[in-house]
């Protein structure tokens, strides 16, 4: 039992007809753990299924719909907070999909509000957001300084009344990473929505998703990110994607993302993009690392990706200093 149970159900909803009670139990647990249960609910909507599974999925759909309303409201709050500054605001990830009604959106769970603003206006954006009721989450001066010096976003802020987090990005990847996507070009070529907020153009959305999946982080929750990529390619195709990804330095990440999407979800991609490289099986193994209870499995694989996530984020000496500082403060990685 692993994440393949979920990818198969998303890819071929009719295949769930053969599931027994244990299969449904595992599928629902894994989908919930991967934050894809609302998406699964939409994919399986209208298909025959046991009444108990239908109830769980209907609840997930209702929950995702409520989450969508809350996320859009939060985006509107950010728009109002920044309205006087003239700073363009680009919505990212789940909120962008919901605001524009894009194909990854039905049932998609949306976490924090992520926005991208021009780097040279970041101080103004911060001041306006603080003035509108958001507060710092990280009280630790080291963390705060670390974010400001090295990260691609402001330290996370939370709204004191609505208890919702906002991540204000000014770049795509941490400043310490070797890859430096062209955030200014993403802003320049972003597309307006009716309410004045903006979203990335489809190729940049794909580049952004691939960057976060394969050039940053340890692939936790990767199946959801990969589902976004699958849906966006199905909706918009891949015209101009290669040139755009190369421009951002993300061609390798993009190609890996499309290969994995093709492998797990059957995304249609050109034959020239399909060759499976020697590391792809390891990535696939990491993406599917769940047991039938929805718990993380494959400890060694996960550990390897955890170490990798830090190694690609910063040079070795800096990483050593960072981990030493964290260690002295009593920080332990979750797991």
């Amino acid at each position, binding site marked *: 039992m692993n994440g393949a149970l979920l990818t198969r159900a998303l890819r071929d909803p009719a295949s769930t007809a053969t599931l*027994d*009670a*244990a299969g*449904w*139990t595992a599928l*629902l*647990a894994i989908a*919930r*753990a991967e934050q894809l249960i609302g998406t699964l609910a939409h994919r399986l909507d209208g298909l025959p299924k*046991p*009444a*108990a*599974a239908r*109830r*769980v999925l*209907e*609840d*997930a759909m*209702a*929950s995702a719909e*409520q989450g969508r*309303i809350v996320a859009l409201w939060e985006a509107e709050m950010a728009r109002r907070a920044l309205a006087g500054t003239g700073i363009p605001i680009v919505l990212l990830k789940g909120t962008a999909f919901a605001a524009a009604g894009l194909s990854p959106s039905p049932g998609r769970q949306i976490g924090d509000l992520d926005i991208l603003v021009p780097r040279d206006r970041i101080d103004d954006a911060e001041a306006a957001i603080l003035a509108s009721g958001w507060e710092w989450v990280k009280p630790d001066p080291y963390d705060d300084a670390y974010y400001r010096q090295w990260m691609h976003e402001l330290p996370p802020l939370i709204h004191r009344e609505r208890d919702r987090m906002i991540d204000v990005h000014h770049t795509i990847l941490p400043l310490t990473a070797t890859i430096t996507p062209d955030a200014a070009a993403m802003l320049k070529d972003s597309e307006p929505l009716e309410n004045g907020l903006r979203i990335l153009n489809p190729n940049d959305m794909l580049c952004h998703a691939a960057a976060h999946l394969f050039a940053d982080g340890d692939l936790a929750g990767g199946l959801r990110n990969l589902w976004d990529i699958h849906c966006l390619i199905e909706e918009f195709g891949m015209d101009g994607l290669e040139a755009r990804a190369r421009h951002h330095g993300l061609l390798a990440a993009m190609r890996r993302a499309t290969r994995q999407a093709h492998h797990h979800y059957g995304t249609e991609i050109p034959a020239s993009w399909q060759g499976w490289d020697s590391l792809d099986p390891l990535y696939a193994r990491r993406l599917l690392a769940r047991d039938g*209870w*929805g*718990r993380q499995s494959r400890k060694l694989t996960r550990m390897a990706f955890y170490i990798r996530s830090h190694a690609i984020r910063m040079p070795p000496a800096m990483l050593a200093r960072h981990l030493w500082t964290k260690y002295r403060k009593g920080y332990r990685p979750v797991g």
Partner: protein
Amino acid sequence: MRHSTRLRIGPIGFRIGCDWRAPIDEIEHLYRDYPQPDDGIPDFNVHLFAARPWRRFARPSVHIGGDFVIPDAAPLPLSMGLLAAEMGMNLQMALGQRRYLLLHASAAERDGKALLMSGISGAGKSTLAALLMARGWRLMGDEFALVDPATGLVHGFPRLVSLKNEALPVVAAALPDARFGAVMEGTPKGTLRHLVPDARAIAAMTEPATPALLIFPRFGFEGAERQMMPSETFVRLTQASTNYTNLAERGFDALTRLVQTVPSHAIDYPDTDTAIAQVERIWSAL
């Protein structure tokens, strides 16, 4: 997970997995008359696990997880495995329940009508519910009442009744033939013992009831009663619900309907005999 069991409480199915055998045996013993989840598919999973592999044997302590988790949930010693399972199930309900408006209340039914009792921990919800059961009421639950937003009906959640401290001898005297779990001393809430709901409560656990009366009991005060305005009840129940905000408009509509159709009383009581008399009197005057 190494060991596991499944059961249904009211309309909610659970699968409980555990790194140790003993807590599962205890659950299966006390919940032996409970049915399986509908279609064999649980609504929620509970995980009872050791933080590190060797902690299964050395100083074993039970961590509580599941589909929904809160950071920093404190582990319990293995001897309190049953309590950990109960807390795990409550946690899944509190964090993950979206079908019903969840009220932190005990509930009992008579003639198809439900009495709900809500209040802070220590107000006497569980004790009074157990004593009403001893007097012929159908126990619907001592922790959560589930209001269906579509129908306004209350569904029970008659899990094991969790009795604490002074309530233990009182309930044991009132229900001499009842089945109880082991006495657990030194839990986060003092001495604790679980009471198995009677056969009728289990047999009828999926039958919803029409809410008829809301009581807000307070233990440790001179006997007093007052009727509450729907507005006050509404505010108190928003605080007594863990998913009111998440249900949004459905939650608002369900709660508004409840407080506008059901009378609500606050009672203070110095001892359980007084409280039961107050409840029965208010009920019979409805």
